[in-house]
């Protein structure tokens, strides 16, 4: 009996010891979990504070950008206003419309007129360059033909060439279809006319300036070849810097501003291309340098600058898509066009005319269950009255129900102008866009996996919900 009692007692004691051990272990585990939760809470607090700080910094930067825009716009206006009177007065006087002036006075008027024109060009060029380098001169990409643009540039410069007895020649080695690429036609024309104008200025009379196009499936290139005095090897690169000319007297003698090539380089870089100068080669004697210079512009068709700034050079052919797309633009006309294009390519579409509507529709769709399809992607106009595109994007991304929906921003600005928005959006299409560009970008975004940013937000929300339980 006593043996039985001692066995029972030891079992009882063992149970108590076990309970104490288990209790202690559980207590430690609970404490550790509490500690974990506390540190997660801290981390969440820190990340919220960080997000707040980032948001404030963004707002400050956008204020600064705005102030700079205003300043440049005002300076430009203040410089142009007196120049308008000067140009008008000198132009009328030197035209002889108001009566004849004697030869010496006529010469002085000519000097004043020419230099006014030079000052106007200089102001235009400085502002142009400033805007481009600060990313405030968006390129408006559209499908255009390099041959047509070259033809237009040659036609524009023919009068200038004729005046200097120089022949302009356009040679194309590209198949018809290979001429097409996505570019800002006004900007490319600006580059081509600038290169032609330089070539004409530095060519001897009775020589030929050639504009040559080569295009294939990988690249597209334009060369402007002159037979002028050539550029010393040590200056081939520096001529693309501001106010760097081969000879210091060139700007006064040739009437240039010293900024033309810097502008050309900026424009070409904005298009994801390259521009450089090289001495001409005599193909009969390849080891010898022939007189004159060749300026080369090259665009690679494989450039995918979407990650940094630029839409791709060649949009992929629009393919058949599927899924429900929410299209938001305050302009009903644009909305109709986009919806029509999407429907034709197999997408289902719902429309929203404001940021508020986007938030409401996105949440409504997210709350519904299958078989009603959830939104696969949102096309969001950047400039919206009321809740702006930016604010809408932020709200979408900060709500767990809608954070994972990819958003493509439609904007007249280039992505490089709005780097902060790019971080949150999964895609970007610059207005005006063509159907291919839009559908290509949509297909790309829908195919790619959710970005790390969206996943991170979801994780934070998971932690937050654990903490509040």
């Amino acid at each position, binding site marked *: 009996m006593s043996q039985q009692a001692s066995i029972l007692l030891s079992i009882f004691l063992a149970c108590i010891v076990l309970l104490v051990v288990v209790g202690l272990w559980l207590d430690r585990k609970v404490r550790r979990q509490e500690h974990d939760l506390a540190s997660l809470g801290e981390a969440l607090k820190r990340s919220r504070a960080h997000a707040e700080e980032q948001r404030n910094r963004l707002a400050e930067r956008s204020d600064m950008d705005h102030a700079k825009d205003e300043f440049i716009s005002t300076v430009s206006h203040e410089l142009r206003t007196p120049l308008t*009177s000067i140009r008008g007065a000198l132009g009328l006087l030197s*035209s002889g419309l108001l009566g004849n002036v004697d030869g010496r006075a006529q010469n002085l008027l000519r000097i004043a007129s020419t230099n006014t024109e030079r000052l106007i060009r200089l102001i235009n060029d400085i502002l142009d360059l400033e805007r481009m380098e600060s990313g405030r001169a968006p390129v408006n990409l559209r499908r255009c033909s390099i041959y047509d643009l070259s033809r237009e540039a040659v036609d524009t410069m023919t009068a200038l060439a004729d005046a200097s007895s120089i022949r302009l020649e356009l040679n194309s080695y590209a198949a018809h279809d290979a001429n097409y690429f996505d570019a800002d036609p006004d900007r490319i024309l600006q580059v081509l006319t600038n290169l032609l104008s330089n070539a004409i200025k530095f060519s001897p009379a009775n020589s030929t300036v050639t504009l040559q196009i080569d295009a294939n499936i990988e690249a597209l290139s334009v060369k402007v070849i002159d037979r002028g005095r050539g550029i010393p090897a040590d200056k081939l690169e520096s001529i693309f810097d501001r106010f760097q000319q081969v000879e210091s007297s060139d700007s006064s003698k040739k009437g240039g501003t010293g900024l033309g090539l810097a502008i050309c380089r900026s424009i070409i870089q904005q298009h994801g291309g390259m521009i450089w100068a090289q001495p001409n080669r005599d193909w009969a004697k390849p080891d010898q340098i022939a007189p004159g210079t060749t300026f080369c512009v090259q665009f690679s068709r494989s450039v995918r600058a979407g990650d940094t700034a630029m839409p791709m050079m060649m949009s992929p052919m629009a393919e058949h898509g599927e899924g429900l797309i929410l299209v938001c633009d305050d302009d009903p006309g644009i909305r109709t066009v986009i919806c029509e294009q999407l429907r034709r390519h197999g997408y289902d579409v719902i429309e929203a005319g404001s940021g508020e509507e986007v938030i409401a529709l996105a949440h409504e769709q997210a709350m519904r269950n299958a078989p009603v399809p959830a939104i696969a992607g949102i096309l969001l106009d950047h400039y919206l009255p009321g809740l702006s595109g930016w604010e809408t994007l932020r709200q979408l991304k900060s709500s767990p129900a809608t954070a994972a929906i990819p958003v493509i921003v439609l904007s007249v600005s280039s992505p490089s102008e709005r780097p902060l928005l790019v971080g949150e959006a999964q895609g970007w299409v610059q207005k005006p866009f063509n159907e291919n560009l839009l559908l290509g970008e949509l297909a790309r975004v829908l195919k790619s996996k959710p970005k790390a940013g969206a996943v991170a937000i979801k994780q934070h929300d998971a932690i937050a919900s654990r903490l509040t339980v």
Partner: protein
Amino acid sequence: MRRILIIDDEDDIREVAALALETTAGWEIVTAGSGPDGILAAANCKPMPDAILMDVMMPGMDGPTTFRLMQQNPELAGIPVLLLTAKVQGVDQRRFAGLGFSAVLFKPFNPLTLAAQISEKLGWVD
């Protein structure tokens, strides 16, 4: 003969533009130095001006506001208005787009071709 109303707060620009249009195209020019004066001048002009050349930045009432007020007056609403601006930045141009102006011309203009530019924008063939 065409009759043009120039509204610009800069005396010198008004004078130069008027002289340029008179001498190169032989048009009759009326000028006003502010938005309100411009609206009065347009209303009192008999016959009405064929076109109005309007500055953007004017103290008091700016060009777009003057234009909007003119549009509310059925007598003046039909006169084509060309904006003449020293603001050539893209962002400024976008601000003017869609406001209903017949054209936007830029300062500094070429005095010898200003009349031709206006005729071209308005489709005048004479």
